[in-house]
């Protein structure tokens, strides 16, 4: 039986993880594209990414393209596992394997 992941379950972080999990291993997305694809309107996007990074679910890479700074995020193996576990937990609730008020 899978467990809930409170870090991932927050709606913006769930979408961020969904987007990053859909990419091939090692593929990173820059901040602007990640925000657009995740349709994140939350002003605290940086804080959400920092929370996911602190949990070890994503890695944040900062570099320069020419003179312009670029921030990219990519999912870690631990992040993929945690995300899959959380999705399984949600499916279990829907199928009644886990009581909804658990």
């Amino acid at each position, binding site marked *: 039986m899978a467990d809930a992941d409170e870090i991932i379950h927050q709606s913006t972080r769930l979408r961020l993880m*969904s987007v*990053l999990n859909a990419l091939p*291993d*090692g593929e990173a997305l820059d901040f602007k*594209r990640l925000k657009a694809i995740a*349709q994140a309107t939350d002003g605290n996007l940086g804080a959400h990414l920092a929370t996911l990074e602190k949990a070890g679910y994503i890695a944040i890479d900062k570099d320069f393209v020419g003179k312009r700074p670029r921030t990219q995020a990519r999912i870690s193996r631990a992040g993929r596992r945690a995300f899959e576990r959380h999705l399984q937990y*949600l499916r279990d*609730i829907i199928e009644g394997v886990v009581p909804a*008020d658990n």
Partner: protein
Amino acid sequence: MTIQANEAASALKDAEAAAGRAASAHGYRIASGYLILWGAIWTAANIATQVSLPVGQMVWTVGAVIGIAASTWLGSRQTGRGAKGGWVKALLIGMAIAGFGVGVSVIAPPLDYGQGEAVACLAVGAIYVAMGATAGLRLAAVGAAIMVATVAGWLFARDQFFLWMAAAGGGGLILGGLWLRKV
């Protein structure tokens, strides 16, 4: 942590939608390189064909060799980034298009060079529409635009057909490739 069934269903739906957008955006990113590459070859070859048929044929031949080599290279880069069999897919698509061309020229040989080009453009457009049905609707829109441009050029710009195809076909592919990157 308390999660109700309806909340779980809503979260799953949100997650699936976001993953779908990410997969489409990733596919667009990959496809854009091929579109810009072949758009440039298409434009150069059609301009050359409008000026002189033998020169155009030579540019098409050289362009096809460069295009296939570059497409294979683009595919191998995707394989290196974790996508499975990128160069194999690129090679298969290239072989399917070449096979279609050979088959048509044997079964229903075009009456002239322009007709052959028009049929090839329609086939390429149809392939993009078919790929777009699974990879993302923007790719399908690019394919449909190529097909419409080809028919329009055939009906209304026959005298300048190759120039039309350079601008509408090749230019359209390049613009389509740039559009796919804007996600």
